[in-house]
């Protein structure tokens, strides 16, 4: 097995386990914002899309695919975080009487 694949598998397994442990503790009240937030976080794939687009391989096709990918994942980043915050802002405790 090549060394990068090996370390990547370790990272994946541990991150999935960490995700399981952290998410298990999230209050069921917040399951919708949770889904929206994890979705925004996984839109970190914008980083990969930037590299592919910015490296400018000489084919137009790669640049076109990359640009669409940057657009799609950036919509996911901006929209995901803003909508999560918009929802969480509404969760209030009882105002003191």
């Amino acid at each position, binding site marked *: 097995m090549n060394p990068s*694949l090996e370390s990547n598998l370790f990272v994946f397994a541990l991150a999935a386990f960490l995700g399981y442990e952290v998410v298990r503790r999230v209050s069921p*009240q917040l399951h919708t914002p949770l889904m929206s937030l994890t979705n925004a976080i996984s839109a970190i794939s914008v980083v990969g899309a930037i590299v592919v*687009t910015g490296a400018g391989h000489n084919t137009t096709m790669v640049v076109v695919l990359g640009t669409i*990918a940057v657009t799609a994942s950036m919509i996911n980043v901006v929209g995901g975080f803003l909508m999560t915050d918009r929802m969480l802002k509404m969760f209030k405790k009882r105002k003191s009487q």
Partner: protein
Amino acid sequence: MIRSYLPVTIIAATAKFLPHRQVMPAYVILIYLAAAMLFALSLKWLSSPKTARWGVLAGEIGMAAAIIATLFLPEVRHYDWIFIAFAIAIAAALPMALLIPMTAVPQQIALFHAFGALAAALVGTAEYYAHGTSLGTSTLVAIGFESLLGYLTFTGSLVAAGKLQEILPTQPMHYPFQNVASISVLAASVIAGAMVVVIPANPLVFPIFIAQCLLFGVMLILPIGGGDMPTVIALLNSYAGLSASAMGFVLNNKLLIIGGALEGSSGFILAMIMCKAMNRSFINVLFGQVQAGKATKSDDIYGGNIKSVNAEEVAAILDGARRVAIVPGYGLAVAQAQHAVGQLFELLESRSVDVQFGIHPVAGRMPGHMNVLLAEANIPYDHLMEMDRINPEFENMDVVIVNGANDVVNPDARDNPNSPIAGMPILNVDKAGTVIVIKRSLSSGFAGIPNPLFAAKNCLMYFADGKKAVLDIIAELEKL
């Protein structure tokens, strides 16, 4: 390995010594590491509504830092298209995130899944076309996973969003040999994916593979009905994350692997919680058919046993109540009744009635949907009780108001082992003193079965629109 006798081996073997990615500068690696830790912290802070907004901030900082660091990578040389894409994305995302009504959050999240998955799939495709045969077997396998999950989640999420927006029919759709057809398409896409790994130089295999993944996404979600949407959205959430994680394997980027894995496991947990709350398995949700026929005839149950009330009578009952529970369902979202319910809550609290909300895990169209709607109506979150916490309380409740919920309060699930929903955990509203069900008619819920609760001695039916009914009750209550 299987590739050893193939002509591309020679190309692949030489390419092994020509890594197509440059070594990342140390500062970028450190920023990525910090971003990964911020992402983990972000989810940890979501454990309580008190710290949740800090969680969003942590996620945003991690994301912004990672994006800026990436723009400074030496291999990123052309910025024009990246910035054009940023501008389009921001212009498109702002109205989506800020203007969408809270009742439409499920379809908006389905759309975000579609965008994320599309990005992952396209990057996989671009990597294939940029480096093609020079990629090693493990990278090609990762591209296969990334594209399979990405493309199927893309079309699947679009179909889910269409159903949630009711552009597509929300009823389960069935046709003969449906499961055979779906599984054949899945098998064909897996085979095409394997061909991509084995004969990457063939110009036809990748387009065929893409087409089959796109088709499978549609076939997987199209038959699923609206009531199963909470599970389906959670599952698509998981797939979207896993495709991003697979992208990390392709690009050898551990931040992507972590970000994707967090969403992958989160979506998986949510899907499990949803399945448990319906007493069904993943396989049953995805490939199960709704069994018909076994259910009791509705006339046998309802005939002569339905007691109907009006707003005035409900107000009189509430006037004497000390403890009240409100159980919302998807009908509340459809009727946009959350603000009316919020007013009723205020009014009852001001008359020193104790009001709690009982929320079933699958109420609504996605996990936690009801909580968001009620929070929007200014109901403090310590009054939003999950099923296990409120169930022991129902016997002490004077009145329970069920608004827009049906199957999740059907006592048959608990008492009748022959019921199609037998074993599904329910809210035991029938244990309360009086149950008032606000509903337009006696029509059945998603499970398509009658609800003996409606004919119970302590149950009163208020036939009306979920919002108008609550407003009328408030008006009558204010007169008392």
